[in-house]
C-alpha cells in the first residue's frame, strides 16, 4: 500500500530546509492573453529535485497558464524558464522539442488517446527520444514496451495493460498518465490539478504516488492544486498564486494558516 503520510525529510535541515538543486527555474514570467486578460505578472519560483513544489491558488489565478507556458503550449510574453541549462522560453522548433523531453506533464482531464490500450499510451512516452519511421506505425522497440509494462506494475495497474484507455476509471486513467510521464524519463514532473476529477481516496493515492516519485526517483515534482488540505499534506515547498501574482514562496513547514487562507479571500 502507498503511504499517504507526509515524510518530512527536509524539515529542520540546513538553512531554509531545501534539499535538492533547483531543476526548474522560472523567472519574471508574464502573460497577457490576446483578449487582454493579464493572467501572469512577473512570476518567479524554483522547483527542486526530490521535492514536491505545490502551486496553490484559487480558480483563475493563473496556475494552468504557468503550466502551459513552461511547456510552451502557450507562449509567454516575457521571462525565462530554465531546465537543464536551457531557456525553454527562448527555444523553438527542434531545440524546443528536445528541451520538452526533460519535462513530463500530467493534465487535469484525461489526456490519453482514447482508442489505444493503456500499455500503448504509456509507451508513447518514449516518442521524444525514439524518432524512427517505424514509430509512425505504432511500432516501438521491445525494451521500451517492457519499460512500459514495468511502469504499469509499479503503479499497480499492470492488469489493465491491454484495456482500452476510454474504458478506464478516472483514477486508473490518471495512473496511466503518470506512467506515461515516467516513461518519458523526465527530470521535472509537472501536474496540473491531477486530482481535480478524482474522488478523495483516489486523490490521496495519486498524490502519494507523486510524492514517492520525488523521494525515490529524485524528480522535481511541480503540482498545481486548488485544495489547501491536500497541499498541506504533500507539499515541501508552496508557491501561492493570487490573480497572477506570487504572494507566497515558502517552505511548506513555514507557511502559516493565515497566509494560506488569504489566498482565497474574496477582496484584495
Amino acid at each position, binding site marked *: 500500500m502507498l503511504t499517504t503520510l507526509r515524510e518530512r525529510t527536509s524539515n529542520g535541515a540546513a538553512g531554509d530546509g531545501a534539499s535538492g538543486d533547483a531543476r526548474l527555474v522560472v523567472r519574471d514570467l508574464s502573460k497577457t492573453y490576446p483578449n487582454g486578460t493579464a493572467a501572469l505578472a512577473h512570476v518567479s519560483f524554483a522547483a527542486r529535485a526530490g521535492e514536491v513544489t505545490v502551486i496553490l491558488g484559487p480558480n483563475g489565478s493563473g496556475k494552468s497558464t504557468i503550466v502551459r507556458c513552461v*511547456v510552451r*503550449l502557450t507562449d509567454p510574453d516575457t521571462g525565462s524558464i530554465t531546465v537543464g541549462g536551457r531557456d525553454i522560453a527562448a527555444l523553438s522548433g527542434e531545440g524546443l*522539442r*528536445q*528541451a*520538452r*523531453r526533460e*519535462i*513530463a*506533464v500530467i*493534465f487535469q*482531464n*484525461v*489526456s*490519453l*488517446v*482514447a*482508442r*489505444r490500450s493503456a500499455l500503448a499510451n504509456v509507451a*508513447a*512516452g518514449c*516518442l*521524444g*527520444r525514439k*524518432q524512427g519511421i517505424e*514509430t*509512425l*506505425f*505504432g511500432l516501438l522497440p521491445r525494451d521500451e514496451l517492457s519499460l512500459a509494462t514495468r511502469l504499469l506494475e509499479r503503479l499497480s495497474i499492470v492488469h489493465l495493460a491491454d484495456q482500452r484507455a476510454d474504458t478506464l476509471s478516472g483514477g486508473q486513467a490518471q495512473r496511466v*498518465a503518470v506512467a*506515461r510521464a515516467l516513461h*518519458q524519463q523526465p527530470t521535472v514532473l509537472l501536474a496540473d490539478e491531477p486530482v481535480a476529477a478524482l474522488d478523495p481516496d483516489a486523490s490521496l493515492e495519486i498524490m502519494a504516488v507523486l510524492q514517492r516519485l520525488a523521494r525515490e526517483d529524485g524528480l522535481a515534482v511541480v503540482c498545481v492544486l486548488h485544495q489547501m488540505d491536500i497541499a498541506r499534506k504533500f507539499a515541501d515547498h508552496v508557491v501561492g498564486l493570487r490573480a497572477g501574482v506570487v504572494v507566497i514562496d515558502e517552505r511548506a513547514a513555514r507557511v502559516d494558516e493565515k497566509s494560506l487562507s488569504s489566498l482565497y479571500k474574496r477582496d484584495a
Partner: protein
Amino acid sequence: MATSFALRAPARAPKRMSLPLKIGIGALVVFLIVQAYIVIEAHPEDIITGFSGIVDIVRRGLPPDPRVLLPSLKASLVTIDVAILATFVPIIFSIPLGFMAAHNTTPGRWAYYAARGIIAVCRTVPDIVWALLFVTAVGLGAFPAFLGLAVHSVGVLGRLYAEAIEDVNMEPVHALQVTGANPAQIASQAILPAVLPTMIGLSLYRLDTNVRSSLVLGFVGGGGIGFQIQQALALFEYKQLTMLLIIMCVMIVGIEGLAVFLRKSIS
C-alpha cells in the same frame, strides 16, 4: 446573390426579425420559386397526357430480357471497380491534404491555403467535368471515368477529413506534443487514432456516392453498366433496359448494404 445572402443572414440577424425583413425574405423565396418554374418551362399537364407513353414503355419493357444478364454483370463490375478505385486512391491524397487544411494540425499558413485551394478546385469542378477533361487526354472508357471521379473525391474527402480533424479533442494531442514527439508522430499516434473511425465512415459513404456517380459517368462514355443503359435506350431495347435497371438497383442496394455493414462493424 441568393447564396451569399443566405450565408450572411444568420450572423447579422438581430435576435428578432423585424416585420419588413420577414416580408422581404418571404417575397424573395416566392420570387425564387416562381422564376425557377418559368425558366425550366414546366408543363405539369404533359405528365398527364404523356402518361400513356410511360405505360407504353413499361409494357414494351416487359418481360426483362435475360440475355443481357451475363454481359451486364461484367459491366456492373466495371462500374463498381471504378467507384472502388476512385474512393481508395483519393484517400492516400486526402489524408495529408486534410491534415494540412485543418487549422489545428496545419504545418503553416502557406500549407493551409495551398491545401484549401487544392481541395476547393477538386471539389467545385463536378466529377463529370473532370471526367470529360480526362477523356480528351486519355480517350473514352473506364479509366478517364476513374480519373475524373478520383480527382473530385480527393476534394470532397479532403474537406471532410479536415473537418473531422478540427473536431478532435486536443488534450491527448497536447499531451503527446509535450513529450517531445515530432509532428508526424503526433499526427499518426494521437490524431489519427481519434479520427480513424470517422474517416472510415466518411470514406464508405463516399464509396456509396461514387457507385452512383460511376453509373452516370457511364452515360457519357465512361463504360460500365451506365453505358449499357444508355445504349439500350438509344436502340429502343426496352426489355434489355428493364433487365439492366433491375441489375443496377440490386448493385446499388448491395453496395449500400455492404457500406452500412462495414460502418457498423467499425463503430
